[in-house]
Structures are given as C-alpha cells and as structure tokens.
C-alpha cells in the first residue's frame, strides 16, 4: 500500500511495529510532491535532500512518540533555522532565519520530518495574488477553484496527500477556511495555547497557530505536542495540557450544544448583502450535521448572540489596525515590495484612528463576556463555517476580506478554540462547520468533532488527485 494514504495514527502504528520506515514514508510524500505539486502549488520550498536525511536518522533512533517519522509541512510564515522563510513576500524572498519557530522546535523534537514550506498568502492576508513570485495554491478537489487562505498551501498539501499534516495560522479564519474548502480538519486552538514565537505576525492579539490534518484523531496527536507554555511568547498561557487523544469518544450523551443559526440564516445577508447568502446545499448540510450530533446523544439548544457584524467588524478593524502598524514603515517607504492584495487590504489601516482601535477593543471585551456567558449553559457551540462550496479562484473580490460575512473571525475575537470539520459536499466540493469551546477546552471540541467524524464518512472522501500514484 502507498504509505502516503495512511493517517498519522495509522502510520505511527506501522512505524512502531516496524512494517513502515520513516524513510519510505518520506520518499512516498516527496514522490507525490514531485508528481503533483506543479499543478497544486502547495509548496514554495521542498527539502528534497534534507527530508530523507532526517528520516534516515529517525529510522535509526529510538521512537519518540506518535509523530516519530511523520512528514509534515510548515506554512511559510514559520521561521526555520537555515531554511528560507519568505512569509509569501518579495520583501523576504531571500530571508534565511537563524532561529526556529517554537512550534517547529516542538514538532522536530517529537520526530517529525519537515518536507518543506507551504505556500501562504502574503503576510497571511494578501492572496490569492497572481502578482507575487509564488503561484497561489489550487484546490485539489477542482484546481479552478480557491482553496481559501491564508494557510492555503498547508491545507492543499494535507488534502492532496502531499504531507501527513501541516501547520497553519489563523487571525480571522486562515486555518478553518482552508480546512473547510479542502475537506480536512483544522483547529484554531485557544489564544495562548500554542506558542506564536517565530511565526511572522499579522495581528498580535488575534493570531493563533494550529494544525491541519486529515482526521480529528490526527489533530489530537499534533496538539499533544504543540500545546504548552512558552515563556518567550508574551501571550502564552501556563495552563495544564490534558491527554487529547484519551478524550476522544464515539458518543456525546449528556452534552448540551448551543447552535448559532442566526449568523448564517439571517445576519449574513442582512448585514453583508446577498453575496454572503449561504447556499441551499450548505443549509441542508448544516441541518443534517446537527441531526447527526443529536443522534449521538447531544442535546441541541438554539443560541442567540449579538449580530454577526458586531463580531466581524471588531475583528477586522483590530486586525487591519495592528497589521498596518506592523507594516507602516514599508507602506510609506517601499510600497512596491507588496503584492496588490496585501497593499489594498492592509492599506485601509492607514485611515483608522486610535479612537477607532480603542472602540473596537472595548467592543471586543463586551463580546468576549457575552460569549463566555453563552458558554455557561452549554458544553460547546456549533456554528457555520464557509457557507458554500469554494468559489473559482479567478472570481474573488480584492476586498472580500472586509466586504463579505465571515463565520470564523468571531472566535478569533473571543480567542476560543474552534475546530473545522467536514459536513458534506456541494457540486463536488467540501463543506464544513465549526465546533467552538470554552477557553483551553480543546479536548471537548476534539471529542465532539471525533464523534461526528466517526458517525459520518466525509473524511474518507478524498480528492481524485490524492489517489496513489500509478505503480504504488
């Protein structure tokens, strides 16, 4: 069997019992990258020589755990010592850091093999941009379509079988959007749960780092290594890390889940216009997914929060203001270095005032308190993710990031753990919802996501391009 078809859990088992070597697994992924990534553009750098060398060392080493010998990708905003890290920008086209991102330090110590750096929207916001040196990644379900972003390359590589897992970052939905459009699992952990050290910032108070995987169990395995206190990240929280995999169950008996329907059933069109309307297929898939949760024993209750736009506009204003402050000097002195989308989207920050920013963070506090109160009565919340199939990659408005509804941004604002899980298909393209939990209760959202996944088979559907290579 082609070992690239295995989940992390399956590959770990095979490596542990000696039936699979980290070298063979790494070579299988590298062969797939060589054969398929010319069409998908999910990598901006492939470590063709270094990855097998690492795998050979691991093959001769004592096992370090479930990630021993597992090949992964890193979004190209993660610093990698001695390996080019561009943030998807001309500005850093030749940038070779002399330090590693904290997440990569942890994953490397756990025995993962770095296959390469994944394509990202410029500075995790400006894309898909055809004016940049790197071609935008393509959706493996249909390469004419958008894979979402900004962790586009990471999600495409996982969905297409070009790595076992990858790291993304999420400031307004950049892990969960790509997870949704690519039919995989993506977790934005609680703010402070996974270190941001060594990851190029977009917005200091909204940035989160997290994994993209094929299954929820794989996500739990990755989180076991990623979660933990980092005294060098000022926002890192010194909070105990539970056994995520042990929390996975098949039933949800006794759980009470709050369903936020008004965001997608009413607020999206009322506040953002007809272009933000959910598709009919999405509405049906969301309802069916809720019925599945109910069939697993969960009690569902409708949850009403403030209007979606209150959350989304506060999130976007804070993000644009913080990102502009970070890049202001370059906007003034070397604007030609930016791609079109990055310049246009973050350039809006030049016209925000200090009072705008303060009012947004006052609103943020009100909404955080509202959401905390809402969670008092339930174990977790279920909300829509992208409410339709991926659009064509050549039909995206430059200002879609501020023009249209977002269902992910609210949970960057609250800092809550939020897991994207596939819930169906429309026009051959994947659909997803989010499971959102209490602060630092990633174990609960993973438990719910795993039970849902085991009761459905959406995670077993993979794009045709993910099939084994001929002869494998």
């Amino acid at each position, binding site marked *: 069997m082609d070992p690239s078809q295995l989940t992390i859990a399956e590959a770990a088992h095979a490596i542990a019992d000696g039936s699979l070597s980290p070298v063979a697994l790494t070579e299988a992924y590298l062969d797939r990258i060589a054969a398929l990534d010319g069409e998908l553009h999910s990598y901006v750098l492939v470590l063709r020589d270094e990855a097998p060398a690492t795998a050979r060392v691991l093959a001769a080493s004592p096992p370090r755990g479930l990630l021993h010998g597992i090949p992964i990708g890193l979004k190209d905003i993660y610093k990698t010592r001695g390996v080019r890290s561009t943030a998807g920008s001309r500005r850093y086209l030749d940038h070779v850091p002399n330090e590693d991102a904290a997440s990569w330090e942890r994953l490397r110590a756990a025995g993962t093999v770095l296959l390469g750096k994944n394509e990202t929207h410029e500075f995790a916001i400006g894309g898909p941009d055809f004016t940049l040196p790197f071609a935008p990644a393509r959706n493996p379900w249909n390469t004419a379509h958008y894979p979402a972003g900004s962790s586009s390359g990471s999600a495409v590589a996982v969905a297409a079988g070009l790595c076992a897992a990858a790291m993304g970052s999420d400031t307004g939905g950049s892990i969960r959007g790509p997870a949704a459009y690519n039919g995989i699992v993506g977790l934005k952990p609680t703010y402070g749960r996974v270190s941001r050290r060594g990851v190029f910032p977009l917005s200091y108070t909204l940035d989160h780092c997290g994994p993209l995987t094929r299954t929820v169990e794989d996500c739990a395995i990755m989180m076991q290594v990623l979660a933990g206190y980092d005294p060098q990240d000022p926002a890192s929280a010194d909070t105990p890390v539970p056994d995520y995999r042990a929390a996975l169950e098949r039933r949800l008996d006794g759980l009470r889940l709050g369903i936020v329907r008004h965001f997608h059933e009413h607020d999206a069109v009322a506040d953002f216009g007809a272009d933000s309307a959910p598709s009919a297929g999405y509405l049906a898939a969301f309802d069916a997914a809720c019925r599945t949760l109910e069939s697993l024993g969960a009690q569902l209750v409708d949850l009403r929060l403030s209007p979606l736009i209150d959350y989304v506009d506060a999130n*976007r204003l804070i993000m644009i203001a913080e990102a502009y402050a970070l890049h202001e000097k370059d906007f003034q002195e070397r604007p030609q270095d930016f791609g079109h989308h990055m310049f246009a989207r973050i350039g809006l920050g030049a016209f*925000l005032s200090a009072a705008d920013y303060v009012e*947004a963070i*006052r609103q943020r506090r009100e909404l955080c308190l509202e959401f905390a109160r809402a969670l008092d009565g339930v174990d977790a919340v279920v909300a829509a993710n992208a409410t339709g199939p991926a659009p064509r990659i050549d039909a995206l408005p*430059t200002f879609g990031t501020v023009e249209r509804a977002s269902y992910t941004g609210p949970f960057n604002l609250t800092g809550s753990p939020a897991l994207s899980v596939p819930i169906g298909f429309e026009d051959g393209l994947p659909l997803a919802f989010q499971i959102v939990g209490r602060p630092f209760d990633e174990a609960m959202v993973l438990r719910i996501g795993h039970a849902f996944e085991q009761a459905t088979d959406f995670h077993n559907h993979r794009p045709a391009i993910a099939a084994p290579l001929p002869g494998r």
Partner: protein
Amino acid sequence: MPDQTIPAERFAILVERAGLKLTAAQFEELRQAYRFVQRMQKSVRRPRDRAAEPAHIFVHPRGGAA
C-alpha cells in the same frame, strides 16, 4: 454602509496625513474601498458606559497567594 464614495479631495488629505505615496490606481482603489473603513468605524461605536474597559486589561495575582 455609506452610500457615497469619499470625494477625491477629502481622501487625498487622508492619504497625505498617512504619509503614503500612491499611484493613481492605488489611490482610486483605496478611495472606493474607504466605505468599508467607514462601516467598521460605525460598527464599533455604540453607547457605552464610560467605565467600559477595553479587552486589553491586566489582572495581577492577589498578594499572599501561595
């Protein structure tokens, strides 16, 4: 959402104040998109108690804690 696009003369003042040197195309694109800034500015302004704190406050541990 504001119905009217900000006049070019007024927007030029904002651009000058921000210290940006825009091409004609950049100027026009950002001018057209300025309505999104206005929407966000309006969206985060609402009647609030003067004591309503921003999100970024700090709670220090109580003294004497073990």
